[in-house]
C-alpha cells in the first residue's frame, strides 16, 4: 500500500485534489490499495457527511443516502415491502460483516473481480492501460458475455446494482461543477478501448444518494443469484425482476442481469418483447433469448447463456405465480 494523506470531508464543496479519492466503507478500496492496484495519494473520508438516511421522496419513492450501509438498507422495512428485489440482492452479496461496512455509493463503484485486474503483477488494461488483456485467452469463466470489448471483458460484481438497474434507480451526484442526476443504467461505461474508466463520474464527483422512483408493482419483485458455493461468493449469473400482470398479460416488467457484462445489464430488449404478451414460461424464455441474441461468449463462459435464460424464467415464473395466487 502506497503512502497517502488522510483527511475527513467536512462538506460537499470541499472538492478533490488530483490523486485523491473518496473513502466510504473501504471494503473494495482498501482491498485494492493493499494489492497495489489502487494507489491514491489522498484519501478523503466521507463517512462523516450527512448521507446515511433512508427517506421518502415526494410523490412516492425512496431516497437512499450514499453512506447507508448495505445491511441497514437490506433490513429497511420500506425497502423490504416496496422493493423486495433490492433487499434480496443486498442479502445475496458478500457477508454479514462486509454488508455492515459497505455503503450504497461504494457498492455501486466497486470494481471488477477479474482475476487479472486484482493482481498487480498481471497485464490488465483496466489497472495498467495498454498492458493487454490476458483474460480472453486465459481465465474468463466468470467474465462478460455482453458488452465486452477486445480490450476488456470484465464483469461488474455488484448484486445490489443489478436490482437498482431493474428499479430505474437514479444516482444523485455532487461535485465541483454542481449537482446532477444519472440513472444507474447510465452510470457505467462499456469498456471499449478505455476500460480503465468504469463510470461516467468526473474526478471529484461524489454519489450523495440513490433515488428509487415509485414503482407500485415492484412489491412483486425478486432477485436470484447463482454462484459457485452456497454463500459468500460473487455471482456467476443473477437476475433481478419485477413484473405486473393484468388478465394474464404482462402489462409491465423490469429485468436486469448480473455477472454477464461490465455493468449491471438492464434487459431492455427482453422487457419490450414481453410487454403485452402472455405471462407464460414460453414467453419468458423467448424474451431472455431476445436479450441474449447479442451475447458473445468466450471459450469457457457460454454456460452463462442457459444459466441466465433459466434464471429469468425461474424468477418471472415465481413472480407470476405470486400474482395469480
Amino acid at each position, binding site marked *: 500500500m502506497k503512502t497517502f494523506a488522510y483527511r475527513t470531508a467536512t462538506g460537499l464543496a470541499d472538492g478533490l485534489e488530483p490523486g485523491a479519492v473518496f473513502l466510504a466503507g473501504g471494503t473494495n478500496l482498501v482491498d485494492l490499495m493493499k494489492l497495489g492496484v489502487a494507489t491514491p495519494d489522498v484519501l478523503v473520508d466521507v463517512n462523516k457527511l450527512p448521507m446515511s438516511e433512508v427517506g421518502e421522496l415526494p410523490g412516492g419513492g425512496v431516497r437512499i443516502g450514499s453512506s447507508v450501509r448495505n445491511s441497514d438498507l437490506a433490513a429497511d422495512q420500506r425497502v423490504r415491502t416496496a422493493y423486495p428485489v433490492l433487499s434480496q440482492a443486498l442479502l445475496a452479496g458478500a457477508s454479514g460483516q462486509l454488508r455492515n461496512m459497505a455503503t450504497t455509493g461504494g457498492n455501486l463503484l466497486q470494481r471488477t473481480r477479474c482475476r487479472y485486474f486484482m493482481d498487480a503483477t498481471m497485464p490488465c488494461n483496466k489497472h495498467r492501460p495498454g498492458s493487454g488483456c490476458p483474460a480472453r485467452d486465459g*481465465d474468463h469463466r466468470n467474465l462478460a458475455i455482453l458488452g465486452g470489448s477486445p480490450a476488456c471483458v470484465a464483469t461488474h460484481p455488484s448484486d445490489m446494482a443489478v436490482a437498482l438497474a431493474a428499479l430505474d434507480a437514479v444516482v444523485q451526484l455532487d461535485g465541483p461543477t454542481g449537482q446532477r442526476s444519472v440513472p444507474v443504467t447510465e452510470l457505467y461505461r462499456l469498456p471499449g478501448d478505455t476500460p480503465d474508466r468504469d463510470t461516467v463520474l468526473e474526478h471529484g464527483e461524489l454519489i450523495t444518494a440513490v433515488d428509487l422512483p415509485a414503482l407500485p408493482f415492484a412489491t412483486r419483485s425478486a432477485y436470484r443469484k447463482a454462484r459457485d458455493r452456497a454463500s459468500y461468493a460473487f455471482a456467476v449469473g443473477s437476475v433481478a425482476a419485477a413484473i405486473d400482470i393484468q388478465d394474464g398479460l404482462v402489462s409491465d416488467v423490469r429485468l436486469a442481469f448480473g455477472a454477464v457484462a461490465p455493468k449491471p445489464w438492464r434487459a431492455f430488449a427482453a422487457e419490450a418483447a414481453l410487454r403485452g404478451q402472455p405471462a407464460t414460461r414460453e414467453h419468458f424464455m423467448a424474451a431472455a433469448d431476445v436479450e441474449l441474441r447479442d451475447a458473445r461468449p468466450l471459450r469457457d463462459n457460454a454456460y452463462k447463456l442457459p444459466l441466465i435464460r433459466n434464471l429469468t424464467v425461474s424468477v418471472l415464473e415465481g413472480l407470476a405465480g405470486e400474482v395469480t395466487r
Partner: protein
Amino acid sequence: MTSTSARAVGSPLARLEGPAKVSGAARYAAEYPQDHLAYGWIVASPVARGRLDAVLTDPAEEDVLAVLWHGNAPELEKPDDPELAVLQSDEIRYRGQPLALVIATSIEAARRAAQAVQLEITAEDHDVELRADHPDRYTPETVVPDAPATSDTGDVDAALAGAPVTIDVVYETPALHNNPMEPHATIARWDGQDLILYDSNQHPSGIAETVGAIFGLPAERVHVVTEHVGGGFGSKGSARPNAVLAALGSLVTGRPVQIALPRQAMFSMVGHRAPTVQRIRVGATRDGILTAIDHQTCTQSSRLFEFVESASVVTREVYPVPNLRTGHQVVRLDMPTPRWMRAPGEAPGMVGLECALDELAAELGVDPVELRVRNSPENPRYVECLRSGAERFGWSERDRRTDGEWLIGFGMAGATYPAQAMPSTARVRALGNDEYEVAIAAADLGTGARTILTQIAADELGVPVEQIHIRIGNSTLPQASVAGGSSGSASWGWAVTGACRELRAAGGSTEEATFDTTALVQQQKEGRHASGAHFAEVRVSTVTGEVRVSRLFGMFDGGRILNPRTARSQFLGGMIMGMGMALHEEGVLDPAQGTWVNHDLAEYHIPTHADVEWIDAAWLDAPESDLNPMGSKGIGEIGIVGSPAAILNAIWHATGVRIRSLPARLDKLLPALPSPR
C-alpha cells in the same frame, strides 16, 4: 502397566486449550511480542522461468532495514529441500518463488517496499501445463511417501480382454491448495549462537533439524516454539521458506524478524496437491467380482524437486484383484513444488477408483454397497463400515426423485488410509502429590493431540486427567515425529505410554522416565489400514446446475477411538474438505501467465457454513490391539478419502451426468442437464 479400566481414554474430554482458544489468549506463531520487531515481506517472482539479474530498490522508501536477494544475502548450507535454498541463486523456477526479502520496521513499510522493488529479470519460455501425453513425462522410481511407482501382478491385459464387463475411464483432479486458516508464519530471533523460531508447523523437531542444518547449527541450538497451530493439512509438515527467510533476516538486521505469509503466497511456496490425470480400467464378472484393474496416474512436479502424488497406490490396498497393474508418471514443469495435502495419494486416487467402481456397479445393475462387499472377502472391518453405514444412512430406502427444480440422488464410496506410527520419544516426570509432567515435541494443529496424550497418560499413571501437565509444541522437548500421515496419536501416544509404564515399573525408584519407540515402531504391523464408507444425498438444480449436499454420512473404523468428541470433529472436517474437493476447489491455471490465477479465498472456494447441511459420522470403536498400545488408527485424513467420490456418484445418480473432471461446478453440469421441469 496393568491399567485396564481406562477411564480417560475413550471419554469425550473437552480440548484442554479450549478456554484459551475461545478467549483469544492462545498464541499462534506471529503473536509473541518482541522488542524492536522488524517485519519481512517476500518479493515473489512475477515470471515462471528465467533469471534474476538484479534487484533495484528505491532509496526513498522509509523505514526499510534491508532488501536481501541472491546478490547480497548470506550464503547458506545447501539444504536437502532445494526450495529452502532461498536467495541463493539467480534461477527462477516458478512464478511466486521468493526472489527478495524486504525487512522494515512496520508491516506497512515492508509491504510497500516489496511492491516497489524493481526486479530485472531475463524471462524464459515456460511450460506449466500437465497433459497425460506430455513428451517429458517419465516413470519415477518411487512415489510419496516411498512406495514403488509401479506394480504388476497377474496378466492385466489378458484379464481385461477376457472380462465380461469392463470400464475404461479417465478422472481428473485439479491442483488443490491446503489453505489452513493461519497462513505460515515465523518470528525468528538470534540469541547468541542459538536461533529461536516461533513457527507455525506440524513438526517442531523436524523444523529445528532442517533450519539448523541450513545455518550450520545442530538441531539443539534451534528452539522451535509451536504452541498453537492454525491448521496445516500437510502444508506445514516441513520447514517452508518463511522460516529460513525470517532467520536470515534476523541474522542480517540483528532484530527479531516476523514473516507472516500473505494468503496469496499460500498458493505457491508452501506446497499443494498436484493435479492428476488418472486412467482406470476395470474388468469384472457379471456378478461383480473384480478380475482386473489397471490404474495409471499422470501428475506433475516442479523443476526443483520430484514429489509424486501417489494416486494409484491406494488401488493396491483396498480390493484384492488377481490381475492388478498400477503406475505413475510425472512431468516436471515450471510450477511450484507439490507437497503433502491431507491424504496425499488416497484422496485423489479414491476419486478415480471409487467413481470407476460406481460406473461398474451401474453397468452391472448391482448395488454399489454390495459390489464392494463382494470384493472385500478378507476385510471384515471395511464390510462392517459398508453395511452398518448403509443401514444408518438409510441407503436401501434411497429414492432418486425430483422436487420442483431439484434432482435428488444418492451415492456412496469406500475409504481407506494406512495405520502407521513413527519413532518418537516422550518423557514423564513425577511432580509429587500424584501429579505428573508429560513432555513430547508434538504439535496440536487442532487434532486434539494435547488432550488425547493427557488422557493416555492419565490412564497409564492411574490418575485423573487434571493431574497430568502436558507439554508439547516445543522442539526442546523430547523428539517427536511429524503431525502428519494420521500418525500423531499412534506415534506420540505410544511414546507416552512407554514412558508412563517405565515410570510405574520403577516403582518410585526414579522420578523421571523417558521412552523412545524407535525399536518398537520398526517392528510394527505393516499394511494395516483404517477404513470407512461415505454416503451422500445431493440435489442438483436444473435451473442453475448448482449442487447442494443435503446429507453426508461417514462410517469409520479407526481402531480404538481415543476421544469421541475430537474424533467426530476430525471425521466431519475431513468429509467437508472432501465436499470442497468434489464441488468447489480448483487451482485455475493460466498457461500463458504460468500460474494459478485464483490465489485468494474469494476466488479459491472452500466450503462455507451454508454449504454444510446435515452431516454426521459414526465409528466401530473396535481396538486393533496388536497395532500399538492404544489399539488406535489415525483418523485425521480418512474423512477426505472417499467423500468426494460419494458426492460425485450421487450427482450421477441424481442427474445421469458423470463429472469426471473435478470440481463438479455448475458450468460443467448445467449444459448437460434437462431443461427445468
